[in-house]
């Protein structure tokens, strides 16, 4: 199980995956936006999206949980 956390304050611009989706290493989970920059958040391993904690338009803080990936 791997937790994916935010590296910075950002807005959630796009949520690309849904809970239950199978993902591979390098797949985009969500796209954040901060300071006019799109920051894709990627899966670090193959697995299944067990939990998705953010929705489009949310403002998230550094360290906030974005998703949990089960392997």
């Amino acid at each position, binding site marked *: 199980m791997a937790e994916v956390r935010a*590296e*910075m*304050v*950002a*807005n959630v611009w796009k949520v690309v995956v849904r809970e239950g989706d199978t993902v591979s290493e390098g797949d985009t989970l969500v796209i954040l*936006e*901060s*300071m*006019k*920059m*799109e*920051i894709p958040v990627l899966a670090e391993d193959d697995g299944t999206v067990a939990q998705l904690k953010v929705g489009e338009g949310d*403002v998230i803080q550094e360290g906030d949980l974005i998703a949990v990936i089960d392997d």
Partner: protein
Amino acid sequence: MLTETLGPVLVANRGEIARRIIRTVKRMGLRAVAVHSEADADLPFVREADEAVLIGPGNPAQSYLDAGKVLEAARATGARSVHPGYGFLAENVAFARAVIEAGMVWIGPAPEAIDRMGDKINARNVMEAAGVPVAAGTREPVTDLSLALRAAESIGYPVMVKTAAGGGGIGMSVAYDDEGLGKAYDQAARAAARFAGSAGDALDGPAVLLERYIERARHVEVQILGLPGGRVVALGERDCSVQRRHQKVVEESPSPGITPELRERMLAAAVRAGEAVGYAGAGTVECLVDADRQDFVFLEMNTRLQVEHPVTELVTGVDLVELQLRVAAGESPEVPAEPAGHAMEFRVYAEDPKRFFPGPGTITAWEEPVADGVRVDSGYEVGNTVTPFYDPLMAKLCVRGESRADALEKGRKAVAAFTVEGPKNNLPFCAELLENAEFVAGDYDTGLVARMRA
């Protein structure tokens, strides 16, 4: 003085550029009106204006990009002119027209000139017709991937893929093959859709363009000023080849990478470009220089003041905002012939210095360097919060030396003397750059930062 007819001047921007414009407006004896979002209420530009109007929440779409709210603030404060700065509404044709229709002076080129240059495909075609060299590329908007693949085949890889509208490097990327083009096209199309959304324009599909990509390119741009009566003059060039994610980090003038002969050709082409669109006021003609072949092509024209304009001011001695105001008021100001010395600008971004990811936060310490030949244009001070709503530019650290070596040395000292605590910042990157062999030698291209981080 004709400029008296411009006051009060509404400054439709924020941060360092609003502060910098307000400074000149006040020095010229005019009243300055600021507009600001809730997120920016504590920033210095709000306090330094003679009057400030809150126009909405932090989200720029509901404040700085909302033309209606900005116009309402202008009317309410009795403003007689509007200076848009850069970004936000600066290249928004409908906004420029609305300002003029409301009986105010637009401190910028005619809306028609913004319109012709705002679409990069159209701009390319206008420039080509005016005899300004352009890179091999698409002449019509590319609206789907199959068109993109066909265009790439005839141009030849690698190709640069970008949106026809917008700027700031957003949506731009290089493709080396068909597979890469798929990704690059998607990214540009997404960005194009967003630009269309924010500008409120109705577009038939995303407008993307493809151009031949020059591998070892320098980004060199020419500052122009169009005077009433149609004469256009060039005020030297700026080399903006230090870039990350196709966005500028450091600029210098003169460019260490072009011969006097090439400089002369580029300045002449920039004047032709300005004259071709009847340009009035300050503008920038951006070019790509093939460092190996000492040749150049037109990239795009920015119909506004540039972030990096202080570099030109430091070597020419002019105040570009003052020149903008004078031209907008119908004056024909004197423009100096020859630049002197060497200037550099370091953009102090709120981002980590390794990967350049945004790092907003509250500023707990802020100390600017003070020395001969050092100029700092900052948008923040201690206690302010750098929020995720806006671009990461906190300040511009500028130096002027008698020679390039002198400017490098002044730059090193000034970077070391600049203290920022709280948000992440790229001052360590600037210090590293100032010791980098390629940069120190002046022999670098737009791939420099990627090589430093390889």
